[in-house]
């Protein structure tokens, strides 16, 4: 079975965000980019599924030349081939999903993994959009997955619990932390990844649906008050929460 895994290349979560001079994007200077943390769970699950059911794993990433580092990381973990869809559509999830779905269709992948969200634009919908465009079933925010034949039983995280979802292939699964423990790339894997081909092609263009007007920093909170340094401050804290903040 052909398995696709879609990965994004995002600023490290420790990054301090500085707004760029266009006031619409971040200033990339001094920013370290990494594989999107949730996508590591997606790659791991794709590899585990391949080990169990056989087949081939193709890694697809949409973005710029630098995304190759992230593709290379997934190849080093054990994916078979990589595709870079060159474009700069990242801020429009509908356009991103359109380009990804065209490539998945071309690859003939029946099972597709995504991370549940990218930690940059935090939309948490690219997997679902892609699934619907492909006409595939979709289970998002998955923390447990079983595939038997074409049947899928997945557990997804919801508020205060989990839903057990039954569906079937072809399908898109979006991975949540807890689904698995991503493996480290071995030295052998890293060496092998250098020889694997990353195919480059332009992303399919389609109508954009969004216009970003402005990016800004959230209003700074006023510096707070340290009320005390031991339990004698507790009574005052409770009074402030009750009378000033009115939250208890």
């Amino acid at each position: 079975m052909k398995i696709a895994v879609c990965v994004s290349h995002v600023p490290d979560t420790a990054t301090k965000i500085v707004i760029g001079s266009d006031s619409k994007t971040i200033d990339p200077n001094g920013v370290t980019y990494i594989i999107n943390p949730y996508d590591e769970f997606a790659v791991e699950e794709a590899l585990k599924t391949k080990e169990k059911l056989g087949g081939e794993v193709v890694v697809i990433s949409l973005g710029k030349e630098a995304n190759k580092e992230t593709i290379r990381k997934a190849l080093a973990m054990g994916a078979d081939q990589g595709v870079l869809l060159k474009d700069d559509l990242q801020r429009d999830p509908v356009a991103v999903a359109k380009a990804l779905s065209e490539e998945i269709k071309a690859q003939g992948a029946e099972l597709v993994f995504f991370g549940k969200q990218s930690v940059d634009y935090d939309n948490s919908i690219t997997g679902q959009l892609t699934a619907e465009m492909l006409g595939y079933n979709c289970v998002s925010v998955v923390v447990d997955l079983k595939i038997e034949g074409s049947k899928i039983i997945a557990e997804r995280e919801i508020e205060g619990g989990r839903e057990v979802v039954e569906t079937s292939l072809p399908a898109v699964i979006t991975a949540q932390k807890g689904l698995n423990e991503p493996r480290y790339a071995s030295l052998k894997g890293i060496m092998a990844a250098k020889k694997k081909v990353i195919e480059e092609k332009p992303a399919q263009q389609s109508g954009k649906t969004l216009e970003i007007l402005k990016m800004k920093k959230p209003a700074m909170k006023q510096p707070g008050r340290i009320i005390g340094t031991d339990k004698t401050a507790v009574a005052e804290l409770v009074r402030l929460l009750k009378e000033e903040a009115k939250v208890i």
Partner: protein
Amino acid sequence: MANKIITFLEQRNGILKKSSLETAKEAVKLASALNYEVEAVAIGNNVEDLESVGKYGIGKVTFFKSESLANYSSSAYAALVSDYAKTTDADILLFSNTAMGKDLAPLVCVKLAAGILMDCVSLEVSSGEITATRPVFAGKALVEAKITSQKKIFTLRPNVFNIGELADNKAEVTAKNVENPDLRTKVVEVKKSEGKLDVAEAEIIVSGGRGLKAPENFHLVEELADTLGAAVGASRAVVDAGWRPHSEQVGQTGKTVSPNLYIAVGISGAIQHLAGMSSSKYIVAINKDKDAPIFGVADYGIAGDIFEVLPALTEEIKKIKG
């Protein structure tokens, strides 16, 4: 053009979620600013008191009803909502940014060839156009954006939009029995975390970090949370150490939260954690290290020993709660 807004009413176990009522109220506000009509759609089997959404200004609710729709089914729910939006020629759809809303809204988006903005924290109307504001990078920045396609979908962050004043009206509910819903994807079981409130929905969160020193000390956090009727949260460090489940993690690779009150206990405040909780209305920090970054975002702080302060705080709150 029908100039219509549809707001989706989410139910769990037959009870409407509070976040859906916030969304309904915002839909009414939006409709009034745009001079649109507004109505609501609900899906389930037995949903309590759908008429009550009249209090939020909704006049009409269409309720798609079937035993097999009591639990969520993404394929069936998406088909019903999008078919209804097509039938009524609605241009704008609102959902809550919940586990269900995040799963459902994108499927509807594709079926309607709409544009979509997720997790909005404000919607402003000016000259008939909607500008949405949404956090990105887990709240380290905000983006203002508009949807350029004819059909527009917005999901709204829970706990952010004020419900405000309520009217004394009842909505007119039309139930439609659904024959043969599309159950390609269906929930066969819901496993509840025992008696716990989820951080994504809670109005008060008590979160613990590495300052608690060991997993067995987390009972101090749990006791305070119980006393306040709050959810228990955790920092990434203690989740990665295996002390607490990931579902409790607050921060950039956990949940972004906006409660009324966030009490951070023994959390120093890594940038990823601050990103996830700094939009809380009030923040209390209890931490030994007075230079910890958490105090930079806290409204009130106690720079002391949590093992001494926390039990005292629980006792004091018990007193006022009687």
